[in-house]
């Protein structure tokens, strides 16, 4: 995974995309890479996961070896106009912003191409060795939007009858399609909706895009603590005589202990069902990241998750 130049993380809202992007950045640094993390659809949450305050469009160092930026299509447009079309930077933001919003609604792919274009620009710079990073990690849009984002160069190529961008889509598509360069990872949790969206997304990516898929990262996996025999034993322990015997040895609170075990067993069982559905429908490598009971979001938790991810990747 870390030998690529562009790693994207997508998935249903709230499953852990930002967390995995941040964890992958830490892993990459541990393996000697310099990383640029791009937060698309920015909630501004990612830098905090690396222990840093929110950042803007201009990349800032947020952790040793990691710079981060928040995508902003308007800024990206300005940059594009300046660099590619030699259009002087338009002074007044007001009308431009409003007109931009308007036309972006009308033209599918304008916002998307500005997003993916900027990202691929940075990827190309990494390959050429002219950038301060070796690897670009994208905290991408959620499942609903990521296909149109990654597919923007393709749709623009089909749409645009003229213009410099049409010719530019060629190198973009080339980078995006190269398995040695690009990898799209899908983050999910062992729950009904995230699994359903993952299955649907993988199918769509395969049929509509040429972007290589990497792994499905199954996040918030509950540990398998107990065997079936244990479960039966726990239920037996609820009998009055048994619970008295245990209380005598273990002290008060036996009922809570058994309730806790039952919840763990039932949740795990419900999730196992969804995992089975995922395994049956998707033939990509699955990486499992355990549920973190004890940590709160922040650098420490990201470090723990990076470790788990590294182990799953065999790093």
């Amino acid at each position, binding site marked *: 995974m870390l030998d690529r130049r562009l790693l994207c993380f997508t998935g*249903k*809202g*709230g499953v852990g995309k930002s967390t995995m992007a941040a964890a992958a950045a830490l892993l990459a640094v541990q393996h000697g890479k310099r990383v640029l993390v791009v937060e698309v*659809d920015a*909630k501004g*949450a990612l830098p905090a996961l690396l222990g840093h305050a929110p950042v803007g469009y201009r990349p800032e160092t947020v952790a040793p070896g990691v710079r981060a930026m928040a995508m902003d299509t308007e800024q990206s447009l300005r940059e594009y*106009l300046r660099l590619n*079309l030699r*259009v002087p930077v*338009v*002074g*007044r933001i007001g*009308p*431009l912003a*409003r*007109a931009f919003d*308007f*036309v972006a*609604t*009308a*033209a*599918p*792919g*304008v916002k998307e*191409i500005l997003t993916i274009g900027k990202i691929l620009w940075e990827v190309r710079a990494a390959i050429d060795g002219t950038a301060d990073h070796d690897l670009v990690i994208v905290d991408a849009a959620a499942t*609903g939007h990521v296909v149109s984002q990654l597919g923007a160069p393709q749709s*623009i190529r089909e*749409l*645009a*009858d*003229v*213009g*410099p*961008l049409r010719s530019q889509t060629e190198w973009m598509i080339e980078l995006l399609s190269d398995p040695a360069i690009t990898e799209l990872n899908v983050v999910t949790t062992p*729950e*009904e*909706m995230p699994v*359903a969206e993952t299955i649907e997304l993988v199918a769509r990516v395969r049929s509509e895009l040429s972007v290589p898929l990497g792994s499905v990262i199954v996040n918030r996996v509950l540990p398998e*603590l*107990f065997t079936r025999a*244990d479960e039966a*034993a*726990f239920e037996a322990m609820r009998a009055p005589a048994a619970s008295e015997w245990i209380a005598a040895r*273990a*002290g008060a*609170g036996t009922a*809570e*202990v*058994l*309730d*806790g*075990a039952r*919840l*763990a067993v*039932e*949740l795990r069982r*419900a999730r196992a069902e969804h995992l089975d559905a995922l395994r049956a429908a998707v033939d990509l490598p699955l990486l499992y990241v355990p549920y973190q*009971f*004890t940590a*709160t979001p922040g650098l420490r938790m990201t470090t723990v998750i990076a470790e788990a991810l590294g182990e799953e990747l065999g790093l």
Partner: protein
Amino acid sequence: MIDLADRHIVICCGTGGVGKTTTAAALAVEAARAGRRAVVVTIDPAKRLADTLGLAALSDTASEIDPTLWRADDGDSPATGSLHALMLDTKSTFDRLVTRYAGDEEQAQRILGNGFYRNVSGALGGTQEYMAAEKLHELHEDGRFDLIVVDTPPSRHALDFLDAPARLLRLLDNRVFRLLMMPTRAYLRVASVAVQTFLRTVARVVGTQVIDDVVGFFQAFEGMEAGFRERAGHVQRLISDPSTAFVLVTSARRDAIDEAEFFAHRLDESSLGVSALIVNRVHPEFGDESPEGLRVRARAFGAGSRLALLYENLADYRQVADRERAAVSGVATGVGEGVPTVWVPLLDHDVHDFPSLAEVAHHLHACF
């Protein structure tokens, strides 16, 4: 307790994945059981829940659910109750709106076939949110229902729903829009330098087809604007009517709670109020022994022993429960004094059939 006795419309809001669809369905079931003629508008429900609600086929008109499926076992449900459900179909709702306000069939077809229309009428840019509100209005006019429960789309921000009608109006107000209403290409002469540069650039980037589509759309739209504006006004009024309740759903996680508080604040600014806060999927407390204490006990049993695992497991859940309670504390003041707050525990199974919907409803303590 959530008092919805005088309410005609209930809107379930919240950030993604917190349980809006589940809550909306549970409230509608409970209302029907209490004798109301209830309808629930769901948005992208999980497949098994959709099956339960009879929404297997894409059904964006309300269809009735057989009462024997949802009536309480104890036979306590008043016979007046009925339950309908539907699944929002953004595109066909928008199409119907266009057909309704078009002067004639020809105008409707010109719009429905336009490229720009096809883009805005898809799930892009808040259209789904607006169409949910529009659906609400449709059902309100329908007259068959005395309680309409509406789910909202899985937006990043709960606010998107509130802002949707305004955004549609802003689109119509846009200066560029007015420029584009001028005869073909005349806009290029009158537009300011910045806008001109921009439009030309866009044309160079994505082709002139796009610009032509936009112009074509607005020309076709001519004459319908007033109708749309009026309709958006109606929808907005319905949303702000005192008989409309906003039910805010959140999880016990800090990020979801921040979003809930932010949303409540915005509702307050618009002189709308939060009728209830639902904190969903809260881990049970499992007693009051400290996680640290439990871990000490676990160690005493010897690492890896069954009893140690049991106590470690309990310590983990106790720790999550404590963190959730810390995150939730203060939320009552965050969403406004006196807003009733109910907690729904994390169930050990998904909520996709009537018994489990009733189980959720039981914890909602709603009265109709």
